[in-house]
């Protein structure tokens, strides 16, 4: 079944106001273009699930798409703070944000339980942490094997999960390499799933290396080809990260008005990701160029 679709159609088909939407990717293969399209279409009252925040969280907040956030790390990686997010939490400016907070281990466990259709997943690290005291959703159960009670976190099943990857075939068999984060679990946990990719490849390429597939086709609702869809984050083997932009964002976002101006100019002022990229200038990606370093092929040889 051919599941390829344009980004505009994929987002409008599978997302609704009020949904919980997971955008995952740990500083690498992040569905940035999809986040921008959510802003363009003006969705509201979303709850965003994202383990490790970054500029797209500030942007979705600035565009008033979010009523809530489920996360375990809310800085801008090593580039500084996310000031739009801090204004919401520290000063309820412009309004309060519902923030459901875990550790990375807790988010991993929540996605894992969601993907596994279990009500919860045990976790060994929360004893004595104020995180557990603060969050009533972190509970505990008795250990029937005689140990102490153990903490549990509830399953996370986003209405829609979106991930980005290097490549897929038209059916939705998705391959990625480099840092893989929690993408497979987020994909399986989602009630619906959009995968954006750098390129659609012939299924013969996918099938020459089936162990490389991180999500099989039957889990995928839409496959969207969006080159440079992860920028300013990297895609292993395709382009490098744009640290300069990430650092600039943390400076810019100290000014709420500047955030609004940036969103108007770069997101709402562009029709799609191609226009967004074009506005960066034709030489913008020169410093994100990479050199080639190919894997040694392995032999999948079959019966002679």
């Amino acid at each position, binding site marked *: 079944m051919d599941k390829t679709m344009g980004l505009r159609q994929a987002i409008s088909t599978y997302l609704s106001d009020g949904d919980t939407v997971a955008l995952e990717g740990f500083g690498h293969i992040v569905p940035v273009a999809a986040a921008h399209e959510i802003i363009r279409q003006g969705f509201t009252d979303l709850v965003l699930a994202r383990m490790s925040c970054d500029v797209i969280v500030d942007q979705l907040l600035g565009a008033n798409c979010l009523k809530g956030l489920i996360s*375990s790390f*809310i800085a801008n990686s090593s580039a500084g703070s996310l000031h739009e997010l801090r204004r919401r939490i*520290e000063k309820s400016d412009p309004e309060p944000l519902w923030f459901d907070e875990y550790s990375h281990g807790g988010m991993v466990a929540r996605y894992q339980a969601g993907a596994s259709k279990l009500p919860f997943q045990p976790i060994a690290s929360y*004893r004595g942490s104020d995180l557990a005291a603060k969050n009533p959703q972190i509970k505990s159960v008795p250990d029937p094997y005689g140990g102490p009670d153990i903490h549990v976190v509830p399953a996370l099943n986003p209405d829609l999960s979106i991930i980005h990857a290097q490549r897929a075939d038209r059916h939705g068999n998705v391959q990625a390499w*480099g*840092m893989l984060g929690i993408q497979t679990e987020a994909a399986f946990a989602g009630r619906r799933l959009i995968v954006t990719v750098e390129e659609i490849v012939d299924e013969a390429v996918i099938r020459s290396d089936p162990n490389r597939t991180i999500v099989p086709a039957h889990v995928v609702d839409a496959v969207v080809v969006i080159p440079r869809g992860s920028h300013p984050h990297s895609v292993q083997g395709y382009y490098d990260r744009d640290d300069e932009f990430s650092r600039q964002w943390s400076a810019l976002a100290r000014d709420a008005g500047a955030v609004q101006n940036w969103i108007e100019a770069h997101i709402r002022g562009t029709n799609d990701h191609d226009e967004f990229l074009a506005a960066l200038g034709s030489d913008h990606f020169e410093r994100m160029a990479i050199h080639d370093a190919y894997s040694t092929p392995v032999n999948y040889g079959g019966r002679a």
Partner: protein
Amino acid sequence: MTLSAHDTIGAQAREETAGSEAARGGAAGSETAASKSAGSQVTSSELLTVHSARALAGRNVVFAGHGLPTLAVSLAQHTVAPDVEIVYESGVTGARPPVMPRSISDSILVPGAASVMPMTHLFNYVLQGQRIDVGFLGAAQVDRYGNLNSTLIGEDWEHPDSRLPGSGGAIEAMAGAAEIFLVMRRHTPRTFVESLDFVTSPGPKKAAEAKAGAMPAGAGVTHVITDLGIMTRFARDEELTLTAVHPGVDPAEVVRQTGWNLKVSPGIETTQPPTPSELALLRETLDPTRIYLR
């Protein structure tokens, strides 16, 4: 994507994200009082890196963030712990980046690495699975038992004065690693506090006082390495004790810069300054462009 503003993130923002991505040590540095008084050009980053590396003797598997901890592990590989393996929160093990990584999720860590694990394996099997000998953490606040705060500053949890990055994987590193090395670039009464505003990552003493949950597997913070000296603790109920000061630092000054009545070891020592060979390795081999050794 032209921004009119330039990169104005200075030390304050960096401080705020200490502990970020679970395991960052400070990156920027300047000449320390200690190094100044010693008359050398040793920067604070170099000093902390060298002492972190030395403390890794005998350890095999280290969970670390980019920057200072990465440099410390590299230095240890060249000196006291040739077989030590570094594990990053992004799932990368045995990385050999040709240039220093810019964060723990920098793709530069991947080419030539020994493995890249999915996050389920990293958090479930490696951290919770108790495979880490030493985890490097940073924090905004530490107390006398090595409990750490990287969540917020202020009394109102819902509306803190400063909202910090949060746990990341720090809680799991603290709970799962055999021991934690804490690197604090600035030893002040605001960072070494009597009472944390928020206990993000509890040590085993704090955990034992709680009612439910699995006990941490390790000892919690065993080494705190700062710009003034080194504090250690070993048993669960033991407080941090000042066991060494850097050359030229008065132990009484360290006590003054600590928000609780810091214990001072009767046999307190003065740290051995970075050796010429350690400094040469750092400056010429490991970080020749001085990305972290600013």
